C-alpha cells in the first residue's frame, strides 16, 4: 500500500471540494478500494471518506425510493420497501459477497467497484486498464470468467456487481454531484463499454460523487427475481446472472418486462433486445427462448467462456419461466 492522506467529509460540499483534489478518491466501505490499494493497483494520494453522507432510504409518495449512496448494502437488502416492491434488488445484493462485506459496502462503492479479472489484479500481467496501451493478457489467457458481450480487443473484463444488475433492470437513476453542480444519469448509462479506453470505466467527471440512487416506481417489480450462477454456492462472482421483472397480463401476454445480465460484459447489461422481443408477445418458453437468442446474437466468446452464451440463454429462459409460472 502506498501512503495516502485521509479525510472524513462531514457534508457533501466538503466531500466534493476535497474530491476535486488531484489523486483524490472517495472512500465508501473500502471493501474493494482498500484491497486494490493493498495490491498498489490503486494508489490515491488522498481518500475522502463519504460514509457519513446520505445514509437514508427515502420512500417517495409515488412509490419510488431514493437510496443514499452511503447506505450499506445490508441495509438496502433488509429494507421493507425494497423487499416488498423490488425483491430483485434484495436478492441480488444478498447473493453477493459475504455478510461481513455487505455490512461494510456502500451503494456508491458497489456501483464503482472494479473488475475481478485476475490479470487486472496481477501487476506482473499486461492490462490495459492498469497501464493503458500495455496490452491484455486475458484475451489469450484464462478467460473463462470474462465478457461475451460488448468487449473490445483492448479489454474483455466484466463488471462484478450483482446489485447493479438489479438496478439496471429496475431503471435506476444515479444522482451525481461535484463542486460545480448536480446531475442525474440512468444507471445503464453510467458504466462504459471498454472500446479503446478500458481504463475509463464510467462517465463520472473528475471529482464527481454518487450521492444517491433513485428507484422509479415500478409496481410490476413485485414480481421480480435475481438468479446468479457461479462456481460455488456462495462467495463467488457471477459467471452469469439474470435480473428480471415480468408483468404478465391475464391473457398470458407480456405487458412489461425488464431484463438485465451480469457477468457477461464490462457493465451491467440491460437486455434491451430481449425485452423488445418479449413485449406484447405470449409469455411462453418459445418466446423467452427467442428473446434470449436475440440478446445473445452478438455474443463473441473467447477461448474459455463459450459456455456463457448457452448458460446465459438457459438462465434467462429459466428465470422468465419461473416468473411467468408465479404470475399464472
Amino acid at each position, binding site marked *: 500500500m502506498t501512503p495516502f492522506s485521509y479525510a472524513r467529509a462531514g457534508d457533501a460540499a466538503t466531500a466534493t471540494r476535497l474530491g476535486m483534489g488531484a489523486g483524490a478518491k472517495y472512500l465508501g466501505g473500502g471493501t474493494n478500494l482498500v484491497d486494490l490499494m493493498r495490491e498498489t493497483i490503486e494508489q490515491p494520494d488522498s481518500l475522502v471518506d463519504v460514509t457519513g453522507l446520505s445514509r437514508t432510504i427515502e420512500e417517495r409518495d409515488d412509490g419510488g425510493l431514493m437510496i443514499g449512496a452511503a447506505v450499506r448494502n445490508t441495509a438496502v437488502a433488509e429494507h421493507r420497501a425494497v423487499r416488498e416492491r423490488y425483491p430483485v434488488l434484495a436478492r441480488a445484493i444478498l447473493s453477493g459477497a459475504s455478510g461481513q462485506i455487505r455490512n461494510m459496502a456502500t451503494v456508491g462503492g458497489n456501483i464503482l467497484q472494479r473488475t475481478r479479472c485476475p490479470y487486472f489484479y496481477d501487476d506482473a500481467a499486461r492490462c490495459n486498464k492498469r497501464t493503458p496501451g500495455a496490452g491484455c493478457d486475458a484475451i489469450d489467457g484464462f478467460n473463462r470468467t470474462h465478457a461475451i458481450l460488448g468487449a473490445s480487443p483492448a479489454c474483455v473484463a466484466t463488471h462484478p456487481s450483482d446489485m447493479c444488475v438489479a438496478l439496471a433492470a429496475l431503471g435506476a437513476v444515479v444522482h451525481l454531484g461535484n463542486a460545480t453542480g448536480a446531475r442525474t444519469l440512468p444507471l445503464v448509462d453510467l458504466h462504459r463499454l471498454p472500446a479503446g479506453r478500458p481504463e475509463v470505466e464510467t462517465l463520472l467527471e473528475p471529482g464527481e460523487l454518487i450521492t444517491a440512487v433513485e428507484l422509479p416506481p415500478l409496481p410490476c417489480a413485485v414480481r421480480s427475481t435475481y438468479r446468479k450462477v457461479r*462456481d460455488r454456492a*456462495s462467495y463467488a462472482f457471477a459467471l452469469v446472472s439474470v435480473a428480471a421483472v415480468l408483468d404478465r397480463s391475464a391473457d398470458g401476454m407480456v405487458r412489461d418486462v425488464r431484463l438485465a445480465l451480469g457477468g457477461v460484459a464490462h457493465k451491467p447489461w440491460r437486455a434491451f433486445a430481449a425485452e423488445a422481443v418479449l413485449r406484447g408477445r405470449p409469455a411462453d418458453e418459445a418466446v423467452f427462448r427467442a428473446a434470449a437468442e436475440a440478446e445473445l446474437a452478438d455474443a463473441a466468446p473467447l477461448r474459455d467462456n463459450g459456455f456463457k452464451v448457452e448458460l446465459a440463454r438457459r*438462465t434467462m429462459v429459466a428465470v422468465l419461466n419461473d416468473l411467468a409460472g408465479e404470475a399464472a
Partner: protein
Amino acid sequence: MTTIRDAAQKVMQTAIGLAPERWLPGGTPDPLIGRHGAIGSSVPRVDGPRKVRGEAPFAAEIPAGNMTYAALVFSTIARGHIATLDTDAAQTAPGVVLVMTYRNAPRMAPPAVFLSDPRAAGASSLPVMQDDAIHWNGEPVAVILAETQEQADHAATLVHVTYTRETASTSFEHAATHAHRPDNVLGEPAVIEIGNAEAALAEAAHKIDRTYHTPRYSHAAIEPHAATVWWEADGRLVVHDATQMLNGTRWTLAGIFGLKEEQVRILSPFVGGGFGGKALWNHQILAIAASRLSGRPVRIALSREGVFRVSGGRTTTRQRVALGARADGTLSALIHTGTAAMTAYNNCPEQFSFPARHLYAAGSFKLEQKVADIDMVANTFMRAPGESVGTFALESAIDELAADMGLDPIDLRRRIEPVKDPTSGHSFSARHLLDAYARGAERFGWSARSPTPRARREGEWLVGMGVATATYPYYRMPGGTARITLTRAGHACVAMASHEMGMGTATVQVQATADRLGLPIDHVTFAYGDTALPPGTIAGGSSQTASIAATVTAASEKLVSALLKLVGNDSPLAGLRAGDVEARDGGLGHRTIPDRFESYVSILSRANREEVSAEAEAPMPLEVQKYAMHSYGAQFCEVRVSTVTGETRVSRFLGSFDTGRILNPRTAASQFRGGIIMGLGLALTEETLFDERTGRIINASLAEYHMPVHLDVPEIDVIWTDSPDPRAPLGAHGIGEIGITGVGAAVANAIYNATGRRIRDLPITLDKLL
C-alpha cells in the same frame, strides 16, 4: 516416507535382535487394544480452551524485542536472470531496516531436499537467493525488513527488477512428451508389471480405457506460513515456525547456515493447519538470513498471495486407467499409468498409482508413474498426495466398468476383493473394506439408487448417488524419542518434539499415555512442538499418532523398569520383574495378583524421589515389512445437478471408514469430515490457474481460488468399523489423510448417476455439465 522407512530398515536388519518385539510379526498385539479406558472416548481437545481464548501463540504472534517485519518481492518470470535491480527507493523508504537481495544475502548452502536424507526437510534443493538466476515465476528476489509490516509492504513495491528471459518449461503437454520415470516414487518402484496387462486388456471380455486429468491445487491453510526468528548473542538460532517437521527443519537449517544442530532451536507448538504444506520453504531461510544481516529479530508472515507463490501444492496429473474384466466381473488386467508435473529440484511425483498397487485383485498389472519437468514453485505433499487424485482416476474407472457390465459398483468391488496384497503378496494386517461398504450402504440408503442415470429428477435438479473406495497406507516413522517423567504427585509428562496442527495429537497422546500408565487423563500432560525436547518424527503420511504411541510405549516400558528398581524389599512389588507387572490405578500391580500393587506416589515417596524419568526410542517399523497395512473407506455421495445451469450441489455425504481402532471419536470425526470437505473442493471447485505462457499462478487469492464454503458442504455423516489392527500400536491407523481419498470419484460417479455424463477432468465445474 517410504525412503525413510527403507533406510531405517536397512539399519535395522543388522540390529534386529535389539528391537523390542511388540510390533514384530508374530509378536503380541498391543495390550491396550482390548482395554477400555481413556482411549476410545471423546475427550475434548486439551489445547481447545487456549485456542478459543486466543491464548495459543502461533508463529506470527511470538513477541520479540526490537522486532523487524519482512516483506518479499517475487519474480515475474519463470526462468532467466535478473538484469537490473533497483533498490534505492526501497532503501530510503520510511522505516526500512534492510533490503536483502542476492547481492548482499549471506552465503548459504542449498537446502537438503526432503527424502534426500531421513532428516531433510527442504521443499526444494534450489539455492536460496544466492545469484541472479530465476527458477520459477514467483521466486523471491528481494526481502525488505522494516519497523512495521506496512512499511515493509510499501517498500517492497518500490523495488524495481528487470529480467533477461530464458525459455521456460511451462507447458505440461509439451513437457509430458519428454516425461521420464523417476528413480523411485517415495521409495517404491516407479513401475510395477505383473504379467502382460496390455495383452490381457486386449483380450478382455469387458474393458474400460480412459484418461483422467487433475489440476494443480494450492495449500490454503487458515494460517498462512509464518516464522519469527532471531539469533542469540552466542550464535544460536531460534526459529518460531509453523511446521510439520521440527527436527528435519532444525537439521536442514543447520546445514544451510553451517551450524551444529544443537545451535538451532525450532519451536512450533501450534500450527494453523498443515496438510503437507508446512515444510521448509524459502521464507524461513530468507528471514533467518535477513536476521543475521540486520542483527534483529525478524517476523515473516506470508501474504495469501505469498503462500501461492512461495509454497507449492498438489501437482497436475494426467492418468490412464484401463481395466480388463472377465465375464464374472473379476479383473484380468489393471493398468494405471500417467504423468505428473514436477520440478527438477524436488521429489514429489504425486504417487497416484499407489492405490492400484494394493486395492484390487487382478490377473495382471501395469502400474507406472512418470514426471514431466516444469519450471514452477516446487510442488509438494498435500493431504493424501497421490491417493487423493489416484483414487479419482481408479475409482471412476471402476464405476465405469461396473456401469458397462451392468453391475452394482459395490458388487463389482466384492468380486475383485483380494485375499492378499495384489502386488507385494503380503498378508493384510487388517482389511475390512467390504464391511465398511456394507455398513455405509445400509446407512446411506444405497439400495434406493437407480442404476440407470437420469432416473431421479426433482424440478430442474437431477439427483444421483455415487460411491468410491478410500484408501491410504499405514506408516510409522522411526527415529523418534519420548521421555516420560513421572512425579511424586503421580503426574506424568510425555515430552517429544511432535506437532499439533489442529488434528488432536496432544489430546490422543494424553489419552494413550493415561491408559498406558494407568493414570487418569488429568494426571498426564504432553509437551511437544519444541526441538529442545527429545526428537519427534514428522507429522506427515498420517504417521504421527502411531509413531508417537510406539515411542511412548517403549519409554513406558523403561519407566516401569526404573520404578521397579526403586521399590524396596517391603514393597508389595518387591522382587517382581517388568514382565510380571502392569500399570493400573495410578501405580504398578502384579498382572494376576490384585494385592500386589503399589501406587506411583507411594513408590516415589518411599524412595524419596521427586520424579523418575525414562527415555526411549521406538522400535523400527518392522510391521510394514511383513504385512500390507492400509486404511480403507467407502465414500458415499448424493448430488443434485441443475439441468438449467450445470451447477452441482452435494446434498448428502457419508464416509464409512476402516482405519483400525478410533482413539477419540470427537477428533477423528473432525479429521474425517475435514478430509471429505477438502475432497469436495478437489472434486468441484478448486484449481490453481497456472498460465502456461508465463508460468504464473493467476488466481493467487482466496477470492479466486475457490475452496468450498459453508453452502457447498452438506451435513457429512461419518462412521467407522473401529476394528483394531493387531499389528499397529494401539490398534490404530493415522486418519489425517484418508478422508480426502475417494471423494473426487464418489462425486464424479454420483454426477454420472444423476446426469449420465462422465467427467474425467477435475474440477467438475458447471461448464463441463452444460
